[in-house]
């Protein structure tokens, strides 16, 4: 046998050995998967993918009845709900995925459910599909939480294939009437409050906003933040820089530096890294982080953060799955539900502003007021929400204008 073939085999073996070490060493109950596996899966499946997909579709369909029987059987033994979580990033990102994983840990103790998670599953390619199928068929998941927008269409498809499993999708908009729902939080509410704190602390009246992608979710956050800052400081300007990244610390940190050099003295952000905060800290500026309380990363810069708290929602769904009362919905919870919140404020936020933030929080939580209440004008001075009117959810979810006071372009 030619040594060329032999050495090619050796390469493959070495790669699989690496992968084996990467997955084989986990003694806790969690199904941990790293990027290596998923990338390798993508690679390995790239050629046969074309025929693999229809096959995978037809086989489970045909077997869906026996399988549906198998799941309750397995459950009779331990009677616990098995919840599978699929994350787009690593649980160590201190941001989006970390926050979801805190929710998973929360339900593990609060509901006693068995949880499984798979991290760093790309939105593109076949990995997500096979991950969910594996969670259902091999881990007996009764409910699957998928936590990135790009998973939506596959979730919809699989919800038809496995009618006895509950599919819950974060940040999407599709659902059905039996087993597929979506959920998200009104992050704009704590963003507004964080804007109030930032507006009180900027001395340059110029805040830099390191923004991810020009989509309604991000635009809504920028507008809410700006309106909050203007409430306590009418002269404030919010300068927006788009990075076109969700996670690229080098670019996000540098974008914060660029905004600081251009005159901003407070940085807000919408990505999953801590890099903008480190840039603010070393420039002696201030920082509003996102996703979680990141005060430890930049203790002097940190002001506060709009944060996710997914645990209570996950608990509700798992309880409903356990007692059979689950019905899918399009959940968009606010501060009143606890799914979004504001991290503790820095000590130097002025007392009157702290008091005002608490007042506004109370108004938001009891429903007597919400952020996008008129009059709101856009960058060009057009009235977008008339005085006294409140923007409806549909308009909020499709928001594509910047409010007056934002400097930047949506493109």
């Amino acid at each position: 046998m030619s040594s060329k073939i032999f050495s090619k085999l050796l390469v493959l073996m070495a790669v699989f050995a690496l992968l084996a070490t990467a997955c084989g060493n986990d003694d806790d109950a969690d199904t941990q998967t790293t990027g290596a596996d998923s990338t390798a899966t993508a690679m390995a499946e790239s050629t046969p993918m074309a025929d693999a997909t229809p096959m995978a579709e037809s086989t489970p369909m045909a077997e869906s009845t026996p399988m549906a029987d198998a799941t309750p059987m397995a459950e009779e033994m331990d009677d616990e709900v098995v919840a599978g979580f699929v994350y787009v990033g690593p649980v160590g990102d201190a941001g989006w995925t970390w926050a979801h994983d805190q929710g998973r840990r929360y339900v593990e103790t609060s509901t006693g459910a068995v949880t499984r998670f798979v991290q760093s599953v790309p939105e593109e390619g076949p990995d997500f599909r096979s991950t969910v199928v594996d969670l259902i068929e091999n881990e007996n998941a009764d409910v699957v939480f998928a936590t990135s927008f790009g998973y939506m269409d596959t979730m919809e498809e699989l919800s038809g294939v496995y009618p006895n499993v509950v599919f819950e999708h974060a940040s999407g908009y599709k659902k059905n009437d039996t087993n597929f729902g979506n959920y998200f939080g009104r992050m704009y509410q704590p963003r507004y409050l964080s804007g109030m704190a930032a507006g009180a602390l900027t001395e340059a009246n110029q805040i830099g906003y390191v923004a991810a992608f020009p989509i309604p979710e991000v635009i809504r956050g920028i507008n809410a933040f700006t309106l909050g800052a203007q409430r306590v400081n009418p002269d404030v300007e919010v300068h927006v820089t788009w990075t076109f990244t969700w996670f690229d610390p080098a670019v996000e940190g540098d974008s914060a530096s660029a905004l600081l050099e251009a005159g901003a003295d407070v940085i807000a952000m919408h990505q999953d890294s801590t890099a903008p905060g480190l840039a603010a800290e070393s420039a002696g500026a201030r920082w509003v982080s996102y996703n979680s309380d990141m005060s430890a990363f930049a203790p002097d810069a940190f002001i506060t953060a709009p944060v996710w708290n997914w645990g209570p929602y996950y608990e509700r769904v798992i309880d409903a799955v356990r007692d059979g009362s689950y019905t899918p919905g399009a959940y968009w919870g606010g501060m009143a539900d606890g799914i979004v919140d504001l991290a503790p404020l820095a000590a130097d936020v002025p007392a009157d502003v702290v008091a005002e933030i608490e007042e506004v929080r109370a108004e938001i939580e009891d429903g007597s007021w919400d952020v996008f209440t008129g009059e709101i004008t856009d960058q060009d001075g057009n009235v977008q929400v008339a005085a006294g009117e409140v923007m409806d959810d549909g308009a909020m979810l499709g928001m594509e204008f910047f409010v007056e006071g934002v400097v930047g372009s949506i493109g």
Partner: protein
Amino acid sequence: MSEAAVIGLFVATVQFATLVYLAALGELIAERAGVLNLGVEGMMAMGAVSGFMVGLETGSPWAAFVVAAAVGALVGGFHALISVVLGADQVVSGLALTIGGVGLAAYVGRNVGGRIPETKFTDMSIIGLSEIRWFGDIFFNQPPVVYLAVLLGAGSWFVLARTRLGLALRAVGESAPTTDAVGHSVVGLRVAAVMVGGGLAGAAGSFLSLYMAPGWTEGMVAGRGWIAVALVIFGAWKPGRLAAGALLFGFTLALQPRLQSFDINFLGLQVNQISPALLGMLPFLLTVAVLVVISWRYRHGPSPAPASLGIAYRREER
């Protein structure tokens, strides 16, 4: 646009350039010896995570930097073993190295992901030179890794162009059988070149996790390893041109956020009102433009690529 903002633009240019230059210089050395290593991304990831972890343990950025370089060399040695010693396909082995390296880095760093950094490189002023207006702020008030990258670039040029070792390295990249016939060890030279290249990629990774974006999170290398591979072609396999390419690339990266925040009116056009999506295309447009210019320059005559690049050598096999 303030002075601080313009200086900031060029400071960031130099730092982004340093990050990709270190990795690309390593790739250049390996390729000049005839070994294509597509595993740069994986070696950088391993360097980034090991550097960050050593920084956590020791609190010394230099210890972290050295370990990261050693780890990069070791990972590069894996590629050398497979593709040089065993003569396997370099593309396959390099891709495997990227996949395996990125995955292994995620695994090794699974308990330190998102940890608060204990140490990082700090800026170092060069006495005298850093006082020069503009120039001093941009070039002589940088972290030590930047100066080191300049020295390594100059040193690589010198070794490749002016020493017998460099001649042998270049010869093995142009024609391995001839070099073998002359009595040099093809395997020895190539393994050494690939490992040195890996060391530089590992060092570049630690510059990322110890200065550019202190910390470790899976995926933080974010494709810079592939930029490094592309830059070698861009730089026509010459350390000097490679530096120019790295600076150009760094400039486009640094320009993108700043064009959005600068209040510049260019020919009646308000720059920060240009669609940010179009600004985001700038690095790619510039890359295409430069590649067109380069291929135009080499339209006659031989390609600047080493003639044996990517070809495994086995004695008496044709």
